[in-house]
């Protein structure tokens, strides 16, 4: 898949939800514990500290907070 196709796919994924209605009562699973990722902020903070010390990589972990439609 070329970078252009990947960008088109991401754009489609980004725009598609705006065209479909998702009612509040359809969001139960999205709000459930099993959809939590990461599960534990304190543990995730420690893991980030470990990875930052053992690898040369940083950033990217601060993805947006979960959109659950509940706030």
């Amino acid at each position: 898949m070329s970078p252009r196709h990947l960008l088109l796919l991401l754009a489609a994924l980004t725009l598609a939800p705006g065209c479909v209605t998702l009612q509040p009562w359809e969001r139960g699973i999205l709000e459930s514990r099993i959809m939590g990722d990461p599960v534990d902020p304190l543990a995730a903070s420690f893991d980030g500290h470990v990875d930052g010390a053992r690898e040369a990589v940083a950033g990217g972990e601060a993805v947006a907070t979960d959109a659950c439609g509940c706030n």
Partner: protein
Amino acid sequence: MFRLVLVLLVVASATPVLAGERAGGRVDVYADGDIVVVAPSAQLKVDASDAVQLNVGWMANVLSGATPLLTADAVSSATTFEDVRHAFDVGVSGRLDALTLLRGSARFSLESDYAVVTASVGLERESQNRRAIFTASYATLLDEAWTSLREGTRQTSVTHRLDGGLSLLLTKTTRLRLGVSGLMHACEELIGCQSNTYRYVAVRTLDSGDIALRETHPDRRARLATTLRLSQALGRYVALHGGYRFYADNWAVLAHTADLAVHAGLAGERVLLRAEGRMTRQTTASFFQPSYTEEEEGLPRYRSADRELAGLWSWRVGGRVEWAALGLGPLLRASWNLRAYHTWYRYPTLDPSLKRNAWVLGGGFDAEW
């Protein structure tokens, strides 16, 4: 009628209030044969009003171990060390309107020879149809290091960090998240950008003598990381989480990280099980060498033998279990958890026989009210 009541309840729960109050604490232990880190931590979130939430946190890292230390007189020996690092966090979140949240936070981290102050501000905006959340944040970090092992006294560096994120509900069982981070470190030479003030490299001189010279890193480091995460529920009580991160910086380090987790709920989510795996591949920094040999024209301007800057592979597997009790006294939910994971590090460009195997064990509790 029942459907109408259900809808009203769900809509009422979707009014613009902040997430509930909660407190948590845990202890994690990291061990890899060279070093042991015991890390207790705690966090508290309370509502100051309907629209403002405060949070405070604390984490300590108690380090002990023995590691080969190259010093200026080229003596390499196993040196024991102990250190304690404390990090304190304080943050505030406030609703500007039904869809917009403003966050601010500060962190102060202190150990015997190092201190970091971090300040950040961020904005979170939910779409009108409540299916997307956009986030943007800026943070600045001020590092200060001092050590009696080096000439000079206190050294400082500054890091600017920008993060952007997007979380999308694709379907009633699928969530997609994107994240982009840009970091710019402006480091003084003595600190380097790896936050270690004690590193030297082995150098063979023109007269075949072996000496140790201080590592020198470029004093600027620009880093970019992008993350894509997908969560897919498979039925009511099982979900898959997968992620990929691409990382690049101007030291020529490229990295790909992929992870996959299965999260399952039993007994109405009173028991949660999670199994996960992670893999990272990282290329070598442009100036990295295991050791250096002096040439007629001298030594390279930048030198490092840090394993963290070598080409490496890492694999991780682990699991977590959580038990929860609902309606326990004044608490809406109280839970206890245990986790364990193992990571294998390999350094094919440094020494194919070099291995590092690390364990993390941890446990904690969490309460919501």
